[in-house]
């Protein structure tokens, strides 16, 4: 799972009001190179919750993202490269996602988060 997906995911356990962002417990992180596409990054920038994105990247061991970002930064190649790397090249292979409200752990195995809810959570 990439941070692109993490930034979109939220816990939908019944009764949870704010299930975003899920806290990352990183067991194993891998990197895979992907070709950069500025248009996609610009399309995604407006949707990304930056604060959650920075925290998530830090929990994956990447600390090069600025704490704050605004769209004017999209003109900088250096910024785009970092944004790209954190968004699409870091994969959480093993670990867990933790619901911020209830502490419920969603295990991640072979890169796939298990988001199945128990019957009493639906």
């Amino acid at each position: 799972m990439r941070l692109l997906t993490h930034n979109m995911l939220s816990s939908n356990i019944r009764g949870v009001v704010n299930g975003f962002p899920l806290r990352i417990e990183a067991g194993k992180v891998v990197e895979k190179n992907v070709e950069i596409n500025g248009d996609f990054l610009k399309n995604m920038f407006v949707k990304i919750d930056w604060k959650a994105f920075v925290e998530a990247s830090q929990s994956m061991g990447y600390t090069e993202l600025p704490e704050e970002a605004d769209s004017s930064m999209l003109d900088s190649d250096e910024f785009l490269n970092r944004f790209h790397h954190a968004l699409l090249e870091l994969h959480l292979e093993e670990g867990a996602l933790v619901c911020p409200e209830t502490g419920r752990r969603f295990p991640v195995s072979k890169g796939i988060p298990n988001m199945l809810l128990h019957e009493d959570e639906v």
Partner: protein
Amino acid sequence: MGSRPELVAPPEIFYDDTEARKYTSSSRIIEIQASLSERALELLALPEDDVPKLLLDIGCGSGLSGETISENGHHWIGLDISPSMLNIALEREVEGDLLLSDMGQGLGLRPGVIDGAISISAVQWLCNADRSSHNPRLRLKAFFTSLYKCLSSGAKAVFQLYPQNVAQRELILNAAMNAGFGGGIVVDFPHSSKKRKEFLVLACGQQSMNSSLTIGKTEDEKGFSDHDDEDEDEENHTVCFSDRHRRPFKKQKNNKNGKGREWILRKKEQMRRRGNDVPLDTKYTGRKRKGRF
């Protein structure tokens, strides 16, 4: 197609390792999944601005449909309830992210972030109650409501589905409309029992149905005649739109007496043109049979 898989077992049981393996080994399945996905993407009618989009693949399974999305240059998140199917997707090294998730529990995604969604032969599974706690109506509602929320305004979702009957089609359509979607059903090859394919095309946001969905083609105006040509080409799509106020789609002309003389004569002529040996047309051709048959 054999018996309906939904009637055999719950999806996470039916799509076990053996069934999942077919998605890498059966060229027929691979071909069908790819062509259905291509068509679904076409119906999604994304803006042609060369900007890669973030799409959902609901019931992504082995990732065959996702590969089609990747080939078209978009990013995707796939979710599926079957671990065996997702394992195949891992084996294929698909480019999308995968989630083990039950769409009937609702999608846990932030509002307005997804640019579009496709789903191939998956949603009809929600019409079954596989556990005592399952209520198809509620599961469809949870699914469509959460989907509506996570799509950005104006985004579309296209579902290829095999509803079991009219009631099931209506159950699905109503759940979608109640969640706020506009849209309707597109039928490709409506007169061919083999090639007939149904797509539910939904749009989210203010755009009205008519302006947002200008898809599908009917090659000839006689689209509703009874022919069942083997060599129908790709252009022969028939579109039926519907909304809450209309029946989801036209009743099939159901001729109790079979296909009729006209159809038989046409078919025979066609066979002759192909050089086949065909019996002469007589007054008995295509006549009604007595009740003892």
